[in-house]
């Protein structure tokens, strides 16, 4: 499937509460060079990408940094195993899923 079919998709909890939209997909490079999905970055307030401000070290220009961090407040990374189902109406999360920091280490 296409990565862009996942991006901007609604993300909902078990009870149907919408918690945001997928704004990026995080992969980890394995020992053979493959890229395996770690999880999805979910933003509750916007569909727009982070423009690189998910990198903790990037904070200039200050005005843009503050604006994008405000726009993406509450964003989180959800691990792929915490995704229960993919439907046409969105991604459904498992009960008790964990919201992890979305910043790149």
């Amino acid at each position: 499937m296409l990565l862009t079919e996942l991006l901007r998709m609604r993300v909902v909890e078990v009870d149907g509460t919408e918690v945001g939209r997928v704004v990026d997909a995080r992969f980890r490079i394995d020992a053979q060079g493959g890229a395996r999905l770690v999880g999805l970055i979910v933003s509750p307030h916007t569909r727009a990408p982070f423009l690189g401000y998910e990198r903790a070290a990037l904070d200039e220009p200050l005005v843009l940094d503050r604006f994008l961090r405000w726009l993406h407040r509450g964003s989180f990374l959800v691990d792929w195993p915490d995704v229960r189902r993919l439907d046409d109406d969105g991604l459904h999360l498992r009960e008790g899923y964990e919201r992890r920091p979305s910043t790149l280490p």
Partner: protein
Amino acid sequence: MIPRPHPEPGRLVDAEFQVLDRQVLDRNGEPVVTVDDVEITDIPRGVELDPDADAPVIENLLSGSAVLGTRLFGGRPPESRWQRIRWSHVTEIGTAVELNTTADRLDASWTERWVRNHLIGRIPGGRHAPD
């Protein structure tokens, strides 16, 4: 310096930010295409996903007007129109995506080869570099 066989193991890559729309360079540093989309392992729709199953992987980088057009204007391009570059060709992800192969070996650059062979090559002087 010997180029890496593939990107650094353990590295985390945010696909939209670090892969989509990046220039793709072949092993000689020649621009090939830009990444218009990424093909990942199919995720079945409407069924419970097994949390212990292997997570999807990136299979191919995609390029071409069909992929880009539907990404911008909606819809889904037929798979026959996807121009693929296998992820196993990727050696580095930086300001550009670098490959371990040459552009001539990739389906993604067929339009450029076609124009070179059928149009530019038929113009007198079109088969050699300028003197």
